[in-house]
């Protein structure tokens, strides 16, 4: 996995930053980290349109960061191309990792129904698809979640690659960081449906620190350890309805295969 193995700082790893269907917020975050100049000196950006119009698409790179979900056929073709030309592929941000907010219709409406709901009979200039995370289509080496991703994690990922090692993913929930930050728990205190217990840590409980419950933008904790059932039970005991719980879980977690079965287990088949 070592990228600069043996070149002792002489050679620069080639990096590509690409966007599929997204708001470009992840790229913007990457382009505006405090140490962007140091990154630009350490790596060679072969493709990063937000920084340089001399970008190629796709380019042969050591590491590709891909933001956005696959929402059109063009996205899909581009993604295949990017994968072919990249040694390491990192899913960057909520859309790429989990499908993002645009995945809300997953499992509820077909793409045709969704299209009709949004555009009526209007035509759009490309063939749309139901939004999906990139891992549905290509092999993803690392996941860097967040909406947008956190600066320290971006730095950690790039630095780890420069070291010739790999970034260690987080597999524990936002609650842990919330507690260490010394926040009062708003789920306990105010009975608000905070998704901290099922959401991947890394944001240092950003929203709760601002007194707002987590909506799960970093996506469900990996390795099947997001306990939607136990949290739904907790919410149910606080009088929150299945619909409310479901809607909230689905904002950033609609593609998680455990979500529906776990909800059903607690609330039963009906609403």
């Amino acid at each position, binding site marked *: 996995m070592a990228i*600069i193995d043996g070149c002792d*700082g002489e050679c620069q790893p080639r990096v590509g930053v690409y966007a599929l269907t997204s708001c470009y917020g992840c790229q913007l975050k990457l382009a505006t980290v405090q*140490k962007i100049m*140091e*990154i630009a000196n*350490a790596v060679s950006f072969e493709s990063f349109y937000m920084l340089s119009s001399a970008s190629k698409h796709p380019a042969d790179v050591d590491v590709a960061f891909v933001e956005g979900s696959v929402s059109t056929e063009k996205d899909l073709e581009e993604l295949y191309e990017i994968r072919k030309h990249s040694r390491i592929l990192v899913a960057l941000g909520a859309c790429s990792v989990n499908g993002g907010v645009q995945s809300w219709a997953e499992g509820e409406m077909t793409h045709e129904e969704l299209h009709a709901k949004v555009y009526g009979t209007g035509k759009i200039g490309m063939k749309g698809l139901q939004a999906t995370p990139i891992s549905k289509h290509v092999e993803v080496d690392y996941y860097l979640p967040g909406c947008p991703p956190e600066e320290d994690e971006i*730095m*950690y990922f*790039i*630095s*780890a690659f*420069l*070291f010739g*090692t790999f970034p*260690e993913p987080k*597999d*524990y*929930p936002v*609650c*842990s960081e919330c*507690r*260490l930050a*010394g926040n*009062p*728990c708003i*789920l*306990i*205190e105010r009975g608000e449906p*905070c998704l*901290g*217990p*099922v959401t991947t840590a890394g944001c240092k409980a950003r929203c709760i620190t601002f007194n707002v419950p987590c909506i799960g933008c970093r996506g469900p*904790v990996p*390795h099947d*350890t997001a*306990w939607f*059932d*136990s*949290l739904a*039970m*907790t919410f149910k*005991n606080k009088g929150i309805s299945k619909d409310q719980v479901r809607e909230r879980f689905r904002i950033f977690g609609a593609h998680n295969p455990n979500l529906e079965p776990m909800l059903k287990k607690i609330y039963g088949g009906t609403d």
Partner: protein
Amino acid sequence: MRYVKISKQNTYEFLERLKKIGTLYAPHKISEKFFDFCEVDDVKDVMFEYQRTIRPPRRFFYPEREVLFTFDTRKVELYENLPSDKKQILFGVHSCDIVALRTMDSKFIDDQPDPYYKSRRENGIVIGLSCLPDEYCFCNVRRVEFVDAGFDLFFHELPDGFLVRVGTVVGHKLVDPYEGELFEEVCPDDTENMSKFEEKRTSMFTTQGNWDNLRYFMELRLNHPMYIRESEKCLGCGNCTLTCPSCKCYDVQDIPSIDGRTGERIRFWDSCQFRSHGLVAGDHNFRETKQDRFHNRYQCKNSYCSATTTSFCVGCGRCTYFCPADIQFKKNLMEIAGYKGGYS
């Protein structure tokens, strides 16, 4: 032991003077239901009556996250980052938490000496404070409701101030300069009042007797159905261990920097409720399921007491009070051991 008395008014003055010795932390109300140890700015904000803080006092000696050393891979050198010798003064520590700190000492000083912890502990001053229990407390059945060591001073509430027990040489030195000014002699009425307070306190615990044999029932009933039922509710969020005053687990990670050459080694609190806690090379996991992880905490807190004769659990009630899934630790332990009397 030496005993002195201080009035409530003089206590505020004493706190002011403590601020000159080092950084003073004391319980503050941080929201409707929660308290935390915060740095004291205005001494009038210090809470003398509180049940438990959301973060345990161990964090002052063993921070949530610390840089152990920085390194340079090209020079093949590392630079230790030992704590500074600044004084930290903790005011208002309850007896359960004081015993929990002593169990930390048993691991981080006696068992596997940890220079980071040891140095902060040596530069720390611990001032205890009496308390009245709520329904979550069970320090009495763990026999830690009254401490006789582990504090420099211990403040016992009186109607008109505090009766102060002096526990160490450091404690003497805190009292000596103000003897006659802030501190006065204890009179028989004060002793009478302290005795009344203790009597009232004893009667308030919802569990009575002792749980000395709990450890054995925990070991004998490893397959108790409680574990299945309760771990189903568990969110695996780690709040129970992160708020616990006697949890010790940490993880260590190297954070490289963008120069591709230097970096830092950090350690941060871990929890056995997380999947990676039991994960080892080859993708093997000692505690593969949520139930395994849930089970582990119950065993660790109650029957893994190799270095101390008391359990690691000191009955502070945090793991129940701060559990978002409302899992009742005390009640579940009673179910396993078959304790009935006195529970309400």
